[in-house]
């Protein structure tokens, strides 16, 4: 997504999000784009709880949010053409749980690109990055050909 302003990226990533059924159903939205760093917001909801006794969100919901944030950060990487590459792996450390009722934010960026592999990292937190609840690293395989299906969807929708 070379040469796009933060605002243009914000708009493109928001419309991309509408095509991703699960994260759209969870109400995940773009919070902020600052250069290579992307922040998404997951609103707290009762149906996303993992421990009904405490109301704490399911660990898997944090996995979904981080997978999405790291993946879209890879997609929006400045040095590359937009393409969806398969995820190779995702690793998450669950450092603490957020208080029930709090929205969760996740910020991610690409920290290394090679010809074949993208390395990404990110954190999930509530209110501020000081309240980090999880830390993730993920690797994506770069495909030879650019997958224009996604950007094509965006253009068709806006046309």
């Amino acid at each position, binding site marked *: 997504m070379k040469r796009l302003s933060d605002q243009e990226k914000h708009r493109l990533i928001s419309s991309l999000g509408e*095509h*991703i*059924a*699960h*994260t759209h*159903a969870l109400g995940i939205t773009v919070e902020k784009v600052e250069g290579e760093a992307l922040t998404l917001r997951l609103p707290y909801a*009762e*149906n*996303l*709880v*993992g*421990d*009904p*006794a405490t109301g704490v*969100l*399911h*660990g*898997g*919901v944090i*996995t*979904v*949010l*981080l*997978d*999405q944030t790291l*993946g879209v950060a890879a997609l929006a990487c400045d040095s590359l053409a937009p393409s*969806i590459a*398969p*995820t*190779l*792996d*995702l*690793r*998450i*450390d*669950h450092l603490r749980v957020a208080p029930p009722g709090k929205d969760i934010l996740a910020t991610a960026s690409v920290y290394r690109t090679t010809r074949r592999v993208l390395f990404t990292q990110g954190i999930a937190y509530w209110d501020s990055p000081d309240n980090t609840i999880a830390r993730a690293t993920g690797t994506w395989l770069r495909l030879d050909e650019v*997958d224009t*299906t*996604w950007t094509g*969807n965006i253009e068709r929708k806006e046309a």
Partner: protein
Amino acid sequence: MSLADIIRHAPSSETLSLWLEKVPYAAYLGIEARVEGDDILFILPPDDKLLGNPAIRAIHGGVIGAFMEQAAVFHLIARMETPVLPKIIDFSLDYLRANFARHTYARCHVTRQGRSVANVHITAWQDDEQQPTATARAHFLIDEALT
């Protein structure tokens, strides 16, 4: 009846579905479970709201991770004499193949269970158990005193 009450009963396919219904996100995903001898087979039926890639109609990678984490949690509870809800410490997920919009299955293996930590290996597949779509490894804190 609370989840804590329900998990005190030995897992049958019936109690497992009661467990799963009590966990809101597991119920939302539509996770099912079946006791097979000493083992538990976890099942994620296809549903459009689980998709993450509209172009190839693949299930969201994060959903596969959530399904596998939930499978590991209930696999561990099923083995406990005094059941407590395990707390996830870390989770490492390898995506091997795309999961398309059809049934996904998961089975767990407890690699090591110490006094306070369990290491669980989880395998997910669609058509052939010998051709997994994802594998994962997770550590859980299970000591009630430490949680």
